[in-house]
């Protein structure tokens, strides 16, 4: 009789799988928000310029449509989070939790909510 004893740590492979699931989920979310992300990013730039006196036509038209001043619109836009950066922060937080997970059950729980 010959005996072979395995020495396997399943956690690295399971962490890789969990990370892949989470990345897929965030990519799907980002793809669904592509227009909004791009529009928000452009408007943040225009809002910064508007507050320094460089008012674009887009800012002027939107302020008129909303019935507010360009300065108020620009300030309002800049109070909102950068959606892409906020999403990346969420992703990094989940990846950190994946790195710190000690059991497959913890990884499964993370993937259930974020994967």
């Amino acid at each position: 009789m010959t005996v072979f004893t395995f020495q396997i740590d399943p956690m690295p492979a399971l962490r890789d799988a969990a990370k892949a699931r989470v990345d897929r989920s965030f990519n799907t979310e980002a793809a669904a928000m592509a227009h909004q992300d791009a529009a928000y990013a452009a408007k943040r730039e225009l809002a910064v310029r508007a507050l320094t006196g460089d008012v674009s036509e887009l800012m002027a038209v939107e302020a008129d449509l909303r019935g507010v001043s360009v300065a108020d619109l620009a300030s309002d836009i800049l109070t909102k989070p950068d959606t892409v950066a906020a999403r990346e922060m969420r992703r990094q937080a989940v990846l950190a939790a994946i790195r710190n997970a000690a059991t497959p059950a913890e990884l499964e729980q993370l993937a259930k909510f974020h994967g």
Partner: protein
Amino acid sequence: MALYAIHDESGKIKQANKIFAPTAAYEQQLRDLGQSFAVDPTAMLLSPDDWYVDVAGGALTERPTLPVVAVRTKIKAGGGDRGVLIGVPKAGKVTITTGGMVLFQDTPGATELEIPIPVPCVYRVAIALWPYRTYVAEIEAFA
């Protein structure tokens, strides 16, 4: 009516066709395509997981069962507890997966496998050796 089991050089069935009116032309067509096949007038469609073609005899044959026995399948995670399989053929290819991820795939060349699991989860252990049916056992490690 006849069953045509098209197989590779090892006898592994790649395709099984039930032909209601077999003809010499159909068989010639298979030969022209370079296919090897066995014909059985009685067999129904069958699973290649359970059947193969004995190439020497040219007959459909049930795949034999590996003499592996899982003697310990519920263990405590971590520490010195181990799942144990005995009767493993030395040439058997062992694949261990958990959660769909492959953790190990190789031929250890041993007749007894000891499988400790460091964290609570279930390992699926598959042992493959042609033409035997693939043996599968689950070993569960609890906290």
